[in-house]
């Protein structure tokens, strides 16, 4: 069995081995192997190419941009996605604008250990995908499976544009697969993750698994729920979403991020605008509550969408 975290480490090892342009840069990622051990042993396996950075998110991203201009393929780690706002300027104003302004692409990958885990509190739990998806010039990946964590990270490094790779911390050690895929599905496409009949859940990241559990629960009520895994939220591939809504007529979008102007809001807007005639009920969304992410596990569990909250939301949608 291989975990989601091991898949990320394997992908990093593979890109380091396959592409001499790749180097890793971030806080504590060298001999220590990273706060989550995503780079464990890589500094030994790839001497001089896995570098500890100072505690400087802005400079970490700036260094990556400069190296990318000169033809490298830097992969940088933000210790937690929450801290990436300290590098926000370089990401959204420099990396994201470089190709548009100068025709020189900016092939950097910024790894964002994202999302909540019990007890992590307001500053080690955030989901930043909507912030980055808002800004033109960035690709935002949100893998929700072990296979995707591996193959999408490899593709992220190959892509010529800046990629925000939102890897979910809750899945790091919980999620396991038998083996890594030989061939990954294209990273910028969404995927039908579960076939159904009565309604569609559109989701990504850790919420994919809460949604699976909700769909299992709803089987006991006689409902067959279809699930679409967005995989990458920017660009947003709505083909599979609209095809699913065409079959089911009902859609609930589930996201662990905050509701205001987020990925779920964008999915609802697109489905409404492009698939209005396919709908039998108003499209719905379920997000985390619109507060900072709370520390106590009991509060945290109530803050984010869970399987039972998703099942409840879905029952309401099915009764509309």
């Amino acid at each position, binding site marked *: 069995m291989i975990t989601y975290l091991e898949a990320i480490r394997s992908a990093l090892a593979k890109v380091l081995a396959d592409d001499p342009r790749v180097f890793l840069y971030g806080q504590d990622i060298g001999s220590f192997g990273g706060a989550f051990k995503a780079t464990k042993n890589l500094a030994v396996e790839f001497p001089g190419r896995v570098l500890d950075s100072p505690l400087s998110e802005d400079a970490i991203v*700036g260094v990556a941009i400069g*190296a990318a201009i000169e033809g490298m393929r830097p992969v940088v780690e933000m210790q937690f996605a929450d801290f990436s706002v300290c590098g926000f300027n370089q990401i959204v104003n420099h990396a994201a604008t470089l190709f548009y302004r*100068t025709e020189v692409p900016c092939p950097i990958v910024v790894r964002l250990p994202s999302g909540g885990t019990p007890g992590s509190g307001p500053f080690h739990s955030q989901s930043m995908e909507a912030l980055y998806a808002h800004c033109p010039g960035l690709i935002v990946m949100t893998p929700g499976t072990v296979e995707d964590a591996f193959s999408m990270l490899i593709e992220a490094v190959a892509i010529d544009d800046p990629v925000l790779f939102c890897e979910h911390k809750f899945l790091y050690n919980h999620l396991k697969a038998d083996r890594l895929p030989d061939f990954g599905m294209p990273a910028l496409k969404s995927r039908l993750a579960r076939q159904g009949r009565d309604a569609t859940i559109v989701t990504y990241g850790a919420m994919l698994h809460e949604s699976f559990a909700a769909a299992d629960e709803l089987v006991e009520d006689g409902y067959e729920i279809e699930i679409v895994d967005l995989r990458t939220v920017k*660009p947003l591939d709505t083909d599979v979403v609209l095809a699913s809504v065409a079959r089911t007529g009902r859609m609930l979008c589930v996201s662990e991020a905050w509701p205001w102007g987020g990925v779920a809001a964008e999915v609802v807007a697109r489905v409404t605008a492009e698939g209005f005639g396919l709908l039998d009920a108003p499209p719905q969304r379920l997000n985390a509550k619109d507060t900072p992410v709370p520390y106590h596990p009991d509060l945290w569990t109530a803050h984010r969408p869970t399987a039972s909250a998703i099942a409840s939301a879905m029952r309401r949608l099915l009764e509309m």
Partner: protein
Amino acid sequence: MSSANERSGSQRPKYLKAYRTMLMARVLEEKLASLYRAGLIKGGVFLGRGQEALSVSVGINLRKGDIFAPLIRDQAGRMAFGDSVLDTLRTYLGSQLGSMRGRDGNIHRGRPREGYYAMISHLGAMIPVVAGGLMARRFRGETGVVGATCLGDGGTSTGAFHEGINVAAVEKLPLVLVIANNQYAYSTPNQRQFACKDLLDKAAGYGVAGHRVDATDLADCLKVMGTAIDLARRGGGPQLVIGDLLRLVGHGEHDDAAYVDPRLKSAPLGRDCLRTSEEFLMSNGWVSAEQIARWRAEAKNEVDVTAAKVQREPPPDPAEEDWKAVSTLAEAEA
């Protein structure tokens, strides 16, 4: 001013080359101001009047293959590094044929593939980017490369300055960071900008070499910048150069700079480096006043002819834009 030794003929070719680049930058910027006042330039115009000596000394001491990330008052340094009158005018006038194709303008231009990075407006942001470029060169085993970037006194207050110079110091990169200490950040005087006695003291704090230069004196600029860039090139790590001068224009051409203390204008700090270099040229007998006038006329002619040409060039066509911010093909309709 410079010692008698530096006044010797050995410095003459470099000094003359630097002066003529400064003169061209000054004449070109006078044209930009004129075009701006005529309403022919959309957006702002930001001039380097008074900073030409400091700026040109950076560009002229760099080589092909080095990295240069100039800031807004570096027309002279840009031209010494290879930027042209033509591309400057194209970018300011929004020609489709300019390096930024109308997508960005004025001082936000560059050719990153040639080591000439295109600044973003956020001050200090280019420091870590140049550091990253130098790290890439090091990964590839290139030696003898230098990366230089320029900033003002106000820029030293940013977090990006701190993070950038610190990273460069930790990695012992051949980065030369030039601070044009021109006394004002837009309208904010230095006493509201920083509390340290001397910006040069920051060098020790970051563990990098520090240099001070009289930026109203071209000979001093050439000498100090030559030393700093040479030290970086020979493995001496980052070099912080503080150039003292007074900004002789507003922040941009929209700004009358009425806030500048008149005592500074009449102090040695307020001297015009172009004027002092002309006095130097003439007092050494290197060049006559008539020759300087001829050079100025030639520069003006080149600028006027180029400006007229660029004004006939097509603006960017919105219908031809692909409106794509990423290069990834699959992103076409996203």
